[in-house]
């Protein structure tokens, strides 16, 4: 298995290289000029030209790509055009809120969605099933920002239970950290809960019709035992796969959620960087997200062995 893990980790290198080339080329051909934004609205075209030259944006594509790639190889993500801060420093400043939000959402979603899907499959065709599936449709249909605004209005403005915005680092206490993240995690988790609940239900329906479930029932196993011990474990592989794929959903959703709840995370950093054409920051963050995505999928692949002993690497 360790050889497999090593192979997979090494395989991330060409993936990252392709991502790097793609991201750099896309940004190179995309319109927009950070120099014009820096110079401000009153600047003359000559000022803009001088700033562009000072940032090295007037250099040819290959020269810029080569310099950037060389920096990446040396572990240097570059320096933000706008803030003059190292991109790695900016990412460090922002990674905790985003990871916190994603982890909490993941925990919340899995703990709600899996039981929902199991119960819906168990009670197939009943009111409970229709309720769960109705919720799933709602979760898919209502945009994250709408859920966010509604939650903020009800639970922050009207009931005054949670703050409207902001983030408290976990180092300042688990309570304040959680207090800031509850609403964003619920808002972001909606679509994720819907996705996992539907997959869980579909997979469980298939598993519950298997012979060994009938055997378990015949042997007098309790309903909870059948559902969560026999059936769910065998339905886990597709569910875990969807959870892994859904990380991309979380990354995309975090951008919106962080804006709605003013959380200083990587999502907002990315949007700000795109709007300003802060190329080094965009490239750095996209590379990081790609790396996280590849890594998560590796972990998911390894997790299969826990649920299905037939799988060997």
């Amino acid at each position: 298995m360790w050889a497999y893990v090593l192979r997979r980790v090494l395989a991330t290198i060409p993936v990252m290289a392709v991502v790097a080339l793609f991201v750099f080329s896309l940004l190179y051909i995309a319109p927009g000029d950070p120099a014009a934004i820096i110079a401000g609205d009153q600047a003359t075209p000559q000022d803009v030209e001088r700033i562009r030259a000072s940032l090295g944006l007037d250099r040819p594509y290959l020269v810029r790509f080569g310099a950037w790639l060389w920096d990446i190889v040396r572990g240097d993500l570059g320096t933000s055009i706008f803030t003059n801060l190292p991109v790695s420093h900016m990412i460090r400043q922002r990674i905790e809120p985003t990871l916190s939000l994603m982890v909490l959402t993941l925990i919340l979603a899995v703990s709600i969605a899996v039981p929902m899907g199991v119960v819906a499959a168990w009670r197939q065709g009943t009111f409970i099933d229709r309720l769960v599936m109705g919720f799933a449709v709602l979760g898919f249909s209502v945009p994250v920002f709408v859920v966010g605004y509604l939650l903020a209005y009800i639970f922050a403005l009207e009931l005054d239970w949670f703050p409207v915005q902001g983030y408290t680092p976990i180092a300042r206490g688990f309570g304040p950290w959680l207090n800031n993240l509850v609403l964003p995690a619920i808002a972001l988790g909606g679509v994720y809960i819907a996705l996992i609940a539907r997959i869980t239900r579909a997979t469980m329906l298939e598993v519950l019709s298997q012979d060994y479930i009938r055997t378990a029932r015949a042997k007098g196993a309790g309903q909870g035992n059948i559902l969560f011990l026999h059936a769910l474990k065998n339905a886990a592989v597709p569910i875990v796969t969807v959870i892994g794929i859904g990380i991309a959903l979380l990354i995309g959703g975090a951008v919106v959620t962080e804006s709605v709840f003013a959380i200083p995370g990587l999502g907002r950093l990315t949007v700000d960087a795109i709007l300003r054409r802060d190329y080094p920051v965009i490239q750095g963050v996209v590379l990081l997200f790609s790396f996280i995505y590849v890594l998560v999928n590796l972990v998911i692949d390894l997790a299969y062995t826990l649920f299905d002993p037939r799988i060997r690497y």
Partner: protein
Amino acid sequence: MDRRAFLKTGAAVAASGGISAPALSQGAAARTLRFVPQANLANFDPIWGTQYVVRNAAAVVWDTLYGVDDKLEPQFQMVEADQVSADGLVWTFRLREGLRFHDNTPVLAKDVVASITRWAPRDPMGQMLAAIQNEIVAVDDRTFRWSLKQPFAKMRFALGKNNTPCCFIMPERIAGTNAFQQITEYVGSGPMRFLRNEWVPGAKAVFTKFDGYVPRNEPASWLAGGKRIMFDRLEWVVMPDAATASAALQNGEIDWWENPIPDLVPVLRRNRNLMVDIADPLGNIGSFRMNHLHAPFNDVRIRRAVMMAMNQEDYMRALVGDDTNLWKTLPSFFTPGTSSYTEVGGDILKGPRNMDAAKRLLSEAGYANQPVTCIVAQDQSITKAMGDVTADLLKRMGMNVDFIATDWGTTGQRRALKNAPGQGGWSMFHTWHAGADCVNPAAYNALRGTGDNAWFGWPTSAGTEAGVAEWFGATTPAAEKTAMDKINTAAMNDVVYAPTGFFLSYTSWRRNVSGIQKGPLPFFWGVSKT
């Protein structure tokens, strides 16, 4: 114990075994002012980056030699006294005592000379001064002398104006940085320190009171007078979403929101804990610029036809809404309500609009259905609203509109291209100007008619330029007013650009905050919180 406190305590105790955050006492909270700025503070070099938000933050960290007051008059600030020779060619400045940088070193004349030298190439008035400069030297620690080849009547205004870039005073070692490269050290001369280690670009910027700052004795008025800070800590909290900022202000999580959008103002007004007022009486002027280099707008008759047909009320209602306290039509290029405001020559924008006459003029000019490449940034509510109105206007005039919906970053790049519209260039784009920049020609790049060297659109207007030169030489208010009449007339005739109207915006704060001044930037001196 209220619900939030209960929830916090419960969650902390139950989930973390009692790990809790250090409590912020009421006194500490009162000594922290939490402010939502108009935009993200993405960089912090007010000479390198001339965005308004950078200027606004810089004004609390760096002081200026002079400062304009609310009457737009420059007053002494770091300068204690000045003297100008009889021929107007030599200015001698004396710094006041007790000026210190945030690293506790004294502010010396050599620092000022270096700061002016870095500022000049980035500022229109600075460039004018540099062009007529013989030398600028430090005479002693507190005195510097600037000798010129010809008199420059607006010296004090140039060094104290609030238009970006302001002439902020930095230590010589920092001011020695190339004006087109960003500084990396933020040692200020103003009333508050910038805490670089707490700066999270895009999210937060923090300033603390500098105890070594010696304010002037006069009452504070805009950038002039005693800049007394009444709290210990100022936190800028960046909120990209207006609804979130509104909710946070209502919830008491922030104290002051610089620019609430008009749609949310009724909600804020209904809240008894909040105050809402006009932010800046100098407001903003909306505009669209036509490309004078290429057809169809290289023909002044076609530019005039558009001006004849346009209805500023349409633009303002689309932009600000039906609250007529917030906007007015503007037959002028200058900021209304100021002493030198003029409407002379602005007849083309007055009275009922005449679409038929505009179409006739278009026909006389031989408009041959050339496409009008209209660039409209969709991510800025102001440009989007104006762009939609213009597209409709041009279509009603019978023009062939090529509507390019894009973002502000792309607009910034494309508007700099002088190519023909069909080859990557453009015919028109929309923008707006802060009213403070349009009070007079001093920092009004957008109004200049210097052809290839002019602002985007590259208008040529000899009459405008003659008026600008006359204004810079004017030594009395009456002479300045005469010059501005000429500028307005010539710029209207040549249609240097098309003003779409004058509009104001609101600011909102919690009732426990007092001392907020109306002005072109948020002034934090004199503001207190109970």
